[in-house]
């Protein structure tokens, strides 16, 4: 029997790795992927709770998250493409003109 805690711990580790990816990578695409990883980690926690409490709400929320993630990826990638068109780079550190 696998304790629910293990799933939550795994979810936390994956989430942290995703966050770390957002923070340390400069490639906008990899940052984006890290965001997907974080979403995924959250989804895993949701499904684990759904199983624990034997309730469908967890799964339904995951369903919506996947749908919204799909939409997000579509728009996000379009943005990256647009940015690349103007700057010829997807290094987020070059996009620092909005500063004090």
């Amino acid at each position: 029997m696998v304790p629910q805690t293990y799933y939550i711990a795994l979810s936390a580790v994956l989430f942290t790795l995703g966050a770390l990816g957002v923070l340390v990578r400069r490639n906008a695409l990899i940052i984006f992927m890290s965001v997907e990883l974080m979403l995924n980690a959250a989804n895993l926690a949701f499904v684990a709770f759904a199983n624990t409490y034997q309730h469908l709400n967890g799964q339904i929320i995951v369903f919506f998250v996947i749908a919204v993630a799909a939409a997000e990826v579509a728009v996000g990638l379009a943005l990256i493409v647009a940015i690349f068109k103007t700057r010829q780079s997807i290094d987020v550190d070059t996009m620092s003109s909005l500063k004090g």
Partner: protein
Amino acid sequence: MSVDLILFFVLALVAVAAAIGMLLSQNAVYSALFLVINFATVAVFYLLLGAPFIAMAQITVYAGAIMVLFLFVIMLLGAEKLAPGKVLPYQRPLAIGLAVLLVAEAAYLLLSRVQSVAAIVTPTVETNTVEEIRRLGMALFSDYLLPFEVTSVVLLVAMVGAIVLTIREKGEQG
């Protein structure tokens, strides 16, 4: 140690390894492929948790559609690798430190605050039927009808947005 537990640890190891691989790959294409592995293992976890529909969705939407989209964009932009940058030198150690703190906090939370150690109900052939998926569908189309329809609108708007952002206007170079 039961089979369940062994399976969990093996899959967890794979998932974490894939995530770290994605994190460390210099080439964006490798990152994408590592992520696909990660997604696939997570899909197996979904099956183990008794959520077959979500597992299928994970495979088709994430591993299939989204990651293919990523790969397309990487290829399209030809931006697999970046020139090394020397900006924000303190970013990496700070980020790692914070990540360690976050994990430590999560661990502390799990170890100290969770009293009832609930076990995961592993689906069997008896429980893992189509009936589960039907219940999910009934819920989606009754209690969650409005969010469901709104999701379709969100997808439509995302599609239109993506087209508007990337469409090549008249006379535009590139």
